[in-house]
């Protein structure tokens, strides 16, 4: 149906792109994760599983990974708690203001991540907007220091940044629910609350799963928020990877952690796809 030349023009660039910028780096990472570093700071190209052993045995990696997952889990929870009602309101009750409100949710995505992270720094710092305000109102007489450089600051910032990512798929799922199903439910005697739990929520589950996956996966791998706002207690696994590839110059160990993360993320995506399929009926 299509000419040979056309097929080549259409298929070769994306395949090349994926090969050069995705498969090749992963292959390199895979190799690095089985190599090691000599005391003289050179990469030793002899195959061994020493890096993986170190990962499993040293508690600092485990603890950081668990902390990262815990932070990501909280971000996911708060993003859903904020994103779902917002999406529900927009989809079912916003009326003619729907498009405007939708744009208002999207606009923050156009603002640089860094700007938003720094904004939180300005708000939460000991001389920041929030502390100044609290002291001015005499609610406290010294700056609260748990606000910045803490897991709290990281969760807050990441929630702010990733809530639109949780919102979007939920909104799309809600928009796809035929409105006559809601009418049918009312018609059969279900009040709005029952209609929500029996019809609307079940049919929005694929969107919730997709939104939760976005929020969790994106915040699990985040390193800027913990770097800028996390302090020592808010370090996440990606910060360790960054330092291993940078100052510590231990690429093999960094590669091993990265592959471990990749494995976690891929299994999560696989699981979420299964869940979405199970709950989609179109």
């Amino acid at each position, binding site marked *: 149906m299509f000419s040979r030349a056309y097929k080549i023009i259409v298929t070769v660039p994306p395949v090349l792109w994926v090969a050069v910028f995705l498969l090749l780096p992963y292959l390199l990472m895979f190799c690095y994760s089985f190599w090691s570093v000599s005391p003289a700071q050179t990469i030793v190209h002899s195959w061994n599983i020493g890096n993986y052993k170190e990962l499993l045995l040293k508690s600092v990696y485990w603890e950081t990974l668990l902390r990262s997952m815990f932070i990501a889990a909280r971000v996911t929870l708060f993003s859903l708690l904020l994103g779902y009602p917002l999406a529900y309101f927009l989809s079912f009750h916003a009326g003619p203001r729907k498009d405007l409100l939708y744009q208002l949710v999207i606009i923050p995505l156009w603002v640089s991540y860094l700007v938003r992270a720094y904004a939180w720094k300005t708000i939460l710092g000991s001389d920041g907007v929030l502390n100044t305000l609290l002291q001015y109102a005499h609610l406290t007489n010294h700056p609260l220091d748990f606000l910045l450089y803490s897991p709290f600051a990281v969760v807050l910032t990441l929630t702010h940044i990733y809530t639109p990512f949780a919102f979007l798929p939920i909104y799309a799922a809600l928009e796809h629910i*035929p409105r*006559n*199903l809601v*009418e*049918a*439910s*009312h*018609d*059969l*005697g*279900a*009040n709005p609350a*029952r209609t929500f739990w*029996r*019809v609307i929520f*079940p*049919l929005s589950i694929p969107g919730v799963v997709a939104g939760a996956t976005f929020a969790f996966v994106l915040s699990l791998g985040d390193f800027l928020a913990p770097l800028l706002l996390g302090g020592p207690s808010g370090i996440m696994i990606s910060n360790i990877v960054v330092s291993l590839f940078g100052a510590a110059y231990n690429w093999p160990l960094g590669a091993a952690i990265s592959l471990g993360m990749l494995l976690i993320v891929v299994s999560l995506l696989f699981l979420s796809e299964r869940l979405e399929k199970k*709950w989609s*009926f*179109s």
Partner: protein
Amino acid sequence: MATLKDSLTAETANTQPAAGSPLLSIRNVAKSFGRNVVLRNISLDIAQGEFLTILGESGSGKTTLLRIIAGFENATSGEVWMGSEKLDQQPPYRRRVNTVFQHYALFPHLSVEQNVAYGLRVAGRPEKETAQRVAEALDKVKMTAHAKAKPSKISGGQQQRVALARALVNRPRLLLLDEPLSALDANLRRQMQVELKSLQREVGIAFVFVTHDQEEAMVMSDRIALLRSGELEQVATPREIYSRPATAYVAQFIGHTNLLKADVQAGRVRCGTLSWPTTLPDGSVQFSLRPEHIRLAGGPSAPGSVRIRAQVLHQAFHGATDLVRARTPDGIVLVVRTPGGVTVQDELDLEFSPADAIPVRASSERN
């Protein structure tokens, strides 16, 4: 077709709702969306156990009227009463009315069985009673074999039956059906018309059925309410609406007819060269004359009948009869139902009896 006399005597009684107070009473209901007036001053009573069809073209307001009864829309003015209960302020989930939606609106995440059980579960009926009533309802619509299937796995006709069972299982006092057969193909549609009608007789629940298909309305209804541009043109039995159309619009909308514009002067109707005696007062009048009431005049004409000579313009096969279009010397084109055997260019001698020419109100120019 029974004779005119038959239809008048036999059916007039059914024009009024059955004895006792009506089940549902729509009083002076009007509805506008912004500046767009959709319904004007609708008053209509629905009797217990009646099959009433709201018939109208698209945009006539028939679905809006149904949605007002169900509670999905609020009337701009007027009232809806069910017995002594005023429904207007009641949300849909408090009305003892159920709806079969145009596209069925089955819950896609629930099985056929769970769909049918929905209303009973929401009402908090005991599980045992629910299971039994659901089984009966599925049996009634012959869907027991598909009880565990998801709606996406069954055909359109089957979804239709499930939607019906889901509504009827709640034993509503009134069932609303919004063009429920419009998505089905012609054969299945005819079959469902018969099934639906016999099911309605069996359960004895009043049905309000919305359709744009006049044939469907004729086949199924006890009464037809014909809606045009938001106003009721006529509410009557199918037979009466056919044989005694109130307006020119009704006469044209239901079946084929000839509309004759005529003048009445001193007890005689004059329409071109045609003329017959009448008791109508002087003025201009329109008459509806059904094609089957015009006969080929063979031999001596019946006393009092009006004779016309016309040339055949066009002839079309309609199964048992042919429909022939013929022009009289004054240029009036008549549609005539003949047993066949007529060809184009033939000169025909036609006749009709004046009693079959029904005076109708001219329909105002709306839309």
